[in-house]
């Protein structure tokens, strides 16, 4: 409990810093956002002042910051310059697409990466180990934006197996309820109209982007599992287990893996979040998915500063909360270990 409070305080302090960064970084941008909105021909001073007040851009910088913070705490991140919609609702509308992609690629990365790492560790220094680790390093060095193009070239254009972009074929008209396409297509109303076809089509659209996004984390998981597993396998209690005559399978899966996964969860988890957000930005841009990543990139093109500011804050919160959760998970796992 004490741990949570101390950690929580530290997170709040860091969050405060992230809000400062989000606020003042955007203020460094050249140009006046109010003039930008009013057009290039110059503005009526009265209208100018009114708009300035409406955007919360009047008064001193410090006053502006606290008004930004007060609004942000109430979930109000301002309005987009481009669409004039609240930034919060725009971000929340795009969140599920990114989350769906992220969850799917975590599963791929864990389900393939960790077994590969174990396999390499068991056969240490063999040809298999070397090949696996060379491939893993290749995956780790992969430029996601190029890998996505190569995959599209191979699977979508060459073999015609998967769609090139988007979340769902145009023939399906699905009402967004949760925003998660895989869930929405299974909801009773949509299911009545299209049966399982829409769901399969959504899955079909998701596989390739998720795999592309999973490539780098997969390699990270494989490398970390291998080194962590090697460390554990050289410990005394594994030798004891061998001496007891336990089967090799039982030793590795039951005794070694549980302890080997602790550092993989803590370091790999934290790394994953950061890699995944970077990956999401590039993957969504390549595959034309309407998620948070492509939204940020488009806002950067349009110089939509309120959106950029809001996105930094929101992603900062997300990353910090995930890290806190991973810390907690780890605490729990290692506590169980010591009991």
């Amino acid at each position, binding site marked *: 409990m004490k741990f949570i409070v101390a950690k929580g305080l530290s997170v709040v*302090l*860091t969050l405060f*810093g*992230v809000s*400062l*960064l989000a606020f003042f*970084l*955007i203020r*460094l*941008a*050249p140009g006046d956002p109010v003039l930008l909105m009013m057009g290039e021909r110059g503005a009526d001073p009265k209208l100018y002042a009114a708009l300035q007040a409406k955007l919360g851009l009047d008064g001193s910088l410090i006053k502006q910051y606290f008004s930004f913070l007060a609004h942000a705490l109430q979930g109000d991140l301002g309005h987009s310059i481009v669409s004039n919609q609240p930034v919060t609702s725009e971000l929340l509308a795009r969140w599920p697409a990114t989350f769906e992609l992220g969850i799917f690629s975590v599963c791929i990365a864990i389900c393939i990466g960790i077994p590969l790492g174990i396999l390499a560790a068991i056969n240490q220094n063999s040809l298999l180990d070397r090949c696996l680790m*060379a491939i893993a*390093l*290749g995956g*780790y*060095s*992969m*430029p*996601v*934006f*190029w*890998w996505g*193009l*190569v995959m*599209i*070239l191979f699977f979508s*254009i060459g073999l015609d197996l998967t769609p090139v972009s988007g979340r769902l074929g145009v023939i399906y008209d699905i009402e967004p309820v949760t925003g998660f396409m895989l869930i929405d297509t299974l909801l009773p109303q949509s299911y009545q109209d299209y049966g399982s076809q829409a769901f399969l089509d959504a899955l079909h659209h998701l596989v390739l982007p998720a795999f592309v996004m999973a490539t780098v984390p997969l390699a990270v998981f494989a490398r970390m599992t291998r080194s962590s597993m*090697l*460390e554990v396998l050289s410990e005394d209690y594994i030798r004891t287990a061998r001496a007891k005559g336990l089967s090799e399978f039982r030793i590795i899966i039951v005794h070694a893996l549980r302890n080997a996964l602790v550092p993989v969860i803590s370091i790999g988890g934290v790394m994953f*979040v*950061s*890699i995944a*957000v*970077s990956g999401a*930005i*590039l993957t969504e*841009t390549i595959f034309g998915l309407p998620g948070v990543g492509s939204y*940020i*990139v488009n*806002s*950067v*093109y349009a*110089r939509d500063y309120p959106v*950029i500011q809001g*996105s*930094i804050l929101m*992603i*900062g919160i997300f*990353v*910090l909360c995930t*890290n806190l959760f991973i810390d907690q998970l780890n605490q729990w796992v290692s506590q169980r270990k010591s009991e």
Partner: protein
Amino acid sequence: MKQGISILQFGRNNVLVSIAISFIFVLMLLAYAGPFMMSLAPYETSKSLLNSPTFFSKHSSFHLGTDDLGRDIQSRLIYGARSSLSIGLAVVLIALSIGTTLGLIAGVYGGWVDRVIVRCNDILMSLPSTLLAIVVVAVMGGGLTNAMFAVTIVMIPRFIRVIRAVAKQEVKKQYVQAAYTFGYSKFRIMWCEVLPNCWAPMIVQATLGLSDAILDIAALGFLGLGAKPPTAEWGAMLSDARQFIETAPYLAIMPGLCIFLTVLSFNLLGDYLRDLLDPKMKRK
């Protein structure tokens, strides 16, 4: 003679690392000496638009083909290597010097200075690197110089973290305690005593950082936030190639392959150096 044998032995024991080192060497040679050795025209347009590479069609006079404006891909790739390597090196050197200085100050001085630096570092690290780089470019405007600045900022925190951790350990050792008893100032201890013992992690991090810098610059170029159009840069070339991906796939494959192989080579070298220099790994 003896030297020759040891290089051969090294090559036999570390096949991949030797290939990586050779690749980096050839790339540097091409990038910096290439323009003097052969005629390269990365910005000259010709009439042969979207020409396939020679090994696909014998009629082509361009080894690696031409792009949609008839520019020679080979020349553009070599100039791209030049900009990628130069920018990567510059970014890493600047980030390394700033990161090392701040890391040493945090590690040696400790106390509230340490806490402030660590806190600021945590804030920067809580934002994923690509996002932070994109935002910095969004604020400052596109272009290669600004992209370079953005990637430098993104790169600093990791150097601070590593150097601070090493400095913290070194400060506890006897030679530093001895230096204190001589009455040396903290400033002198920081630069003359602790810094020389940080060189191993500095080299490892710099090599690994180089691959990340090249990757990040290319990613920004791909998103259209780095190098501006006529500039021959790998990421920007890749983004131009996207619209011709069905008609001229080689346009998209080659710049990406260059990025991939370069990043992979620096990662291989970095991994090797870490195994060689990191005492924790050596014990294993």
